[in-house]
């Protein structure tokens, strides 16, 4: 039985148990409305965790996602408020494109100049955050300045489910396809597992890294638009410190910071777990001040559990029976 699979099942079970426990305490938490609310709340974190996962798999880290999100979100809000006649699709595409460009800057520095990801994204994080202020002049863009359809989009329901959830579902499917069934995704695992071997077998590492960070940036851009539209306000401090929440979701989902392991399911479950904790605290009347401390404890517990089966970090790609037949 695959250990990694067990861990993901474990995480899924603990989420269900957690939801049930909170539900026992206050039944309103397990009502359909509340659960659908929970799902909607978890979407942005889930989407960002997906692309962060791809980055972490390559032994990198993208600390600039939250700043990228703030910058793309602010630009989308400014664009929509200055040109209200612009169709919504253009605004969304613009936000995604801006995020993509910001991510490609990271990717170029990391892939082609071979600079350490943590330093590069630390630097661009400051730069992007500062640019939010420069562009907006420090002013807020509030709900009455934005067009109505811009604000309404994320929470509009299609077939009874909010657009946010639909978009997140598409993102999950796309990430799953990339990670499991595309050459691009498999190359990322190779890069993370053994960078020098990956180079020897001819994986174009620089190009792969460029587009991995580009993907992370594009997702941050899309989430920037969704964030601003959902909360109907854009300001400099948007999503401040959110990069650590995203990384935390990945760590809880069993994605090793040492690279080479991690699954889409893990990232999604990690994000869901954090969202459940966040939404359950007010329901069981624990002071929201506890949220950060609990998140920290959960992260530490998760890394301890991950470390316990670190022996099994390598993911068996070839079916085991083929190897045995070969050996015999």
């Amino acid at each position, binding site marked *: 039985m695959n250990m990694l699979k067990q861990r993901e099942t474990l995480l899924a079970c603990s989420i269900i148990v957690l939801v049930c426990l909170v539900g026992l305490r206050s039944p309103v938490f397990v009502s359909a409305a509340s659960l659908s609310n929970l799902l909607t709340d978890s979407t942005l974190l889930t989407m960002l965790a997906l692309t962060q996962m791809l980055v972490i798999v390559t032994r990198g*880290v993208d*600390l600039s996602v939250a700043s990228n999100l703030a910058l793309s979100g602010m630009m989308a809000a400014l664009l929509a408020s200055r040109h209200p006649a612009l169709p919504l699709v253009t605004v969304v595409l613009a936000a995604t494109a801006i995020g993509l460009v910001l991510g490609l800057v990271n990717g170029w*520095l990391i892939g*082609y*100049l*071979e*600079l*350490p990801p*943590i*330093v*590069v994204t*630390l*630097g*661009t*994080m*400051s*730069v*992007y*955050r*500062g*640019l939010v*202020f*420069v562009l907006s002049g*420090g002013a807020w863009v509030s709900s009455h300045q934005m067009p109505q359809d811009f604000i309404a989009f994320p929470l509009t329901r299609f077939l009874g489910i909010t657009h946010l959830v639909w978009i997140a579902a598409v993102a999950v499917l796309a990430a799953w396809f990339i990670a499991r069934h595309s050459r691009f995704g498999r190359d990322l695992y190779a890069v993370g597992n053994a960078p020098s071997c990956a*180079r020897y077998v001819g994986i*174009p*590492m*620089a*190009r792969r890294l460029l587009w991995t960070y580009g993907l992370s940036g594009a997702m941050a851009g899309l989430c920037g638009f969704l964030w601003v539209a959902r909360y109907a306000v854009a300001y*400099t401090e948007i999503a*401040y*410190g959110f990069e*650590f929440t995203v*990384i*935390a979701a990945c*760590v809880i989902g069993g994605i090793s*910071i*040492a690279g080479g392991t991690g699954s889409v399911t893990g990232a999604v479950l990690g994000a869901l777990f954090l969202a459940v904790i966040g939404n359950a605290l007010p329901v069981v009347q624990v*002071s929201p*001040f*506890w*949220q*950060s*401390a*609990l*998140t*920290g*404890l959960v*992260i*530490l517990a998760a*890394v*301890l559990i991950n*470390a316990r089966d*670190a022996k099994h970090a390598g993911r068996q790609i070839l079916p085991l029976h083929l190897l045995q037949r070969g050996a015999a």
Partner: protein
Amino acid sequence: MNSSTANMTSTHSSRYTILDRPGFRPYALLGKWETLLALLFVAAFLVNGILVPNFLDPYNLADGTFNFSEKALIALPMALLIICREIDISVSGILALCSVALGLANTHGVPPALLLPVALAAGTACGLLNGVLVTRFALPSIVVTIGTVSLFRGLASVVLGDKAFTGYPQLMADWGQGYFFDVIPREFVVLLAFAALFAVVLHATRWGRRIYAIGNNPVAARFAGIEVDRYRLVLFMLTGAMAGLAAYLLTGRIGSTRPNIAMGWELEVITMVILGGVSIAGGAGTIGGVLLAVLTLGTVTYGLSLANVPGIYMTIVIGLLLLVTIAVPRLLRGRKVAK
């Protein structure tokens, strides 16, 4: 053939030559990172001195040091940690928790003279937790400290709620915002004293050499008989203690403990260290470089604030400095980039 080889190497007793340190070459000094930083520092100082009125006013200059002294105090042990291939993201969380511990101790009538030990003890305890998790459970420090930063800051906010601690004794204010001889800020003197101490330990003692050895190759260091994990543990505790000291000074300077105290400092501290030429891959860097980076950043910040440029422009400047400083040597080296 044999005799000529023997003659050539006659000054050395073995086939392999391992110099204790490379010979002194003046022109090599120019290529050193510290020299570049020093030039950058002088340039920033001169440009500010010419362009910004009142920049060279000694009282202003002295006041300008308050902005970076506490962060720089944390940057010193952080440099040691990063040289050792570890990192501590949780410093701002430790600082917040120490400040809360100070507030609790103060409201429960602990005498002012005992408050500094309280802060140091709280910081060391936090560092101990980080260190134990990293060494005993063999976890990557970046993940552990991302977890503990939430934990520490969370615990601080649980105690603090939406209140704030105020009413700190005069002694703390004296150290946080006081001056020696009415002109030299005490915080700055504390920083210089600790920088000297750290420089001696890192560059002139066996402990320092061992830290470099661990950073260069932890496994080889272990085989060479260095207690790698004990060094790591002590360095985490040291970082915690210095964050406690910074908490004491910062709390004394602003006279209160608020929930958002020192928010985001970890990244500024790490930026100082990396800008100072400490390699994130471990094994390289000097305290002198870190101090120069601190002074350069301080000069730029202070000049911009005198020129009424909003503080947030500083984050752009710091980020660009960081990117340019690591990208330029890479571009200058001119090695063909791998596709």
